[in-house]
């Protein structure tokens, strides 16, 4: 983990409430894809944890949804403004078990961490299958960005207004895959867990206090005992997950 001051380079809307912010600063604390940063927003006490979407040298790309007053304020930040970030938080994805044709499934704001992962896997010569799930056409983002990486991309919308109609699980087993990675809302994670034919990894979201393992605010129970989503997570293996209630 590193603390650093980052400068906003750009901050633009991708949909009505999803934004892409590019920041420059010392990003050397980030050691892998699937990690997150924790952003201090002026006027708010706790930091906002947001997953890393892309990293190019000292330029960090984050894609986030404005869901409350803190992220709304973030969405109004202008180029040149500064942000205090804790970087390199969480374990990130383990790429080693991916096999030759990994499947990446992102739902809503679970899509962004899949981008850097897809980029890394493609650079390793893997055939990457991507399924992006949204509620409706107006919420779709990053389809072209994934395609530009060279991934085989499919989109689903719950209402059928774009791509395949229904949930990501409706089409996830149409093509064979060697392993899977998944990030999105918990009902989607549970459905993918049930339908998946191989082993895989899930990225979880929790309300956090600190984001670096001190407060125990985000603990969850796993087969291997209690884990902190911010520290031993946010990525958990399929085999270790214990769904609560």
């Amino acid at each position, binding site marked *: 983990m590193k603390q650093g001051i980052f400068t906003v380079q750009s901050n633009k809307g991708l949909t009505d409430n999803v934004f892409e912010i590019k920041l420059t600063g010392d990003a050397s604390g980030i050691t892998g894809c699937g990690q997150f940063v924790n952003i201090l927003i002026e006027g708010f*006490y*706790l930091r906002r944890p947001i997953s890393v979407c892309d990293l190019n040298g000292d330029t960090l790309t984050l894609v986030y949804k404005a869901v409350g007053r803190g992220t709304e304020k973030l969405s109004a930040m202008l180029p040149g403004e500064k942000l205090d970030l804790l970087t390199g938080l969480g374990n990130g994805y383990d790429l080693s078990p991916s096999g030759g044709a990994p499947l990446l499934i992102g739902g809503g704001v679970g899509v962004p961490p899949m981008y850097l992962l897809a980029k890394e896997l493609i650079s390793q010569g893997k055939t990457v299958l991507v399924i992006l799930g949204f509620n409706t056409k107006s919420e779709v983002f990053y389809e072209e960005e994934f395609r530009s990486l060279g991934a085989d991309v499919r989109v689903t919308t719950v209402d059928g207004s774009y791509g395949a109609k229904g949930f990501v699980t409706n089409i996830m087993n149409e093509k064979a895959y060697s392993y899977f990675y998944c990030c999105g809302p918990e009902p989607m994670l549970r459905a993918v867990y049930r339908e998946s034919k191989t082993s895989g990894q899930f990225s979880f979201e929790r309300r956090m206090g600190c984001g670096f393992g001190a407060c125990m605010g985000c*603990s969850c129970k796993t087969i291997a005992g209690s884990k902190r989503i911010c520290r031993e997570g946010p990525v958990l293996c399929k085999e270790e997950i214990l769904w609560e209630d």
Partner: protein
Amino acid sequence: MGRLSVELCGTELENPVIPASGTYGFGYEFAEYYDINILGTFSFKGTTREPRFGNPSPRIAETPSGMLNAVGLQNPGVEKVISEELPRLKKVFHKPVMANVSGFSLEEYTEVCQRLDKEEQVGWLEVNISCPNVHGGGMSFGTEPRSAAEVTRAVKQVTTKPVIMKLSPNVSDIGEIAAACEEAGADGISLINTLLSMRIDLRTGKPLLKNVTGGLSGPAVFPVALRMVYQAAKAVKIPVIGLGGVDSAETVLEMMMAGATAVQVGAANLVDPFVCKKIIEDLPVTMDKYGIKNIKDIIGGAQV
């Protein structure tokens, strides 16, 4: 003896800055970021007899200038604290540590204290009778002078280490509880634990915390904490550790002027992992600004 040094129950602290229990784990997370030996000491994660997972999620919520937590004393239990956490801590922290103890019965408090009493690394036992997030224990001991005194007496019988009783702000007369602990043999008191609070999620119409209520901490509580430290310090002669919303050299000095011998820093560690280091570095300059030569000279200076 530097100008920041204070004496806490017979042990010299290099400075009065102590990370508060529950915000600093067992120290080694922070030891990755800076040398934690610069601290006066720190109070480790509240320890119970059995391992505890704590409360269901969500157990954190934000508030204006602060936060709510309902973690519910998650800890690995005293056995693992002694066999795993303390040996790990020993590698990165070479000063006496404050052992924070919690319980659900008199027997549990005494058993955990008895076991930690044998640990050479432990310099003080901080006995938490003020956790608002557990049922049937915790705070229920700290909201009434008689039960607070009972826990104090029971613990004092099983240890030779200084016993610091950690008090709840959720009481009507803090002086009375502080005095009851002193009379029962406490070597010190620390306050305040968090203030019982809640928030509601407008989207769901339900409490934000699964536990419904939680404890409020952060700068929002500082003036309340300061007032209670002032009142407790007036009521007792034993040392008082002040905590609640401390996040700067200035707030450390205010707490000490109110009557605190040492000061704990809690929620601020979660927002800025380097805050204690910054406070310790800022103290001499801030003391110069206000004409304070030695920090111990200001303890209780604001008492009227």
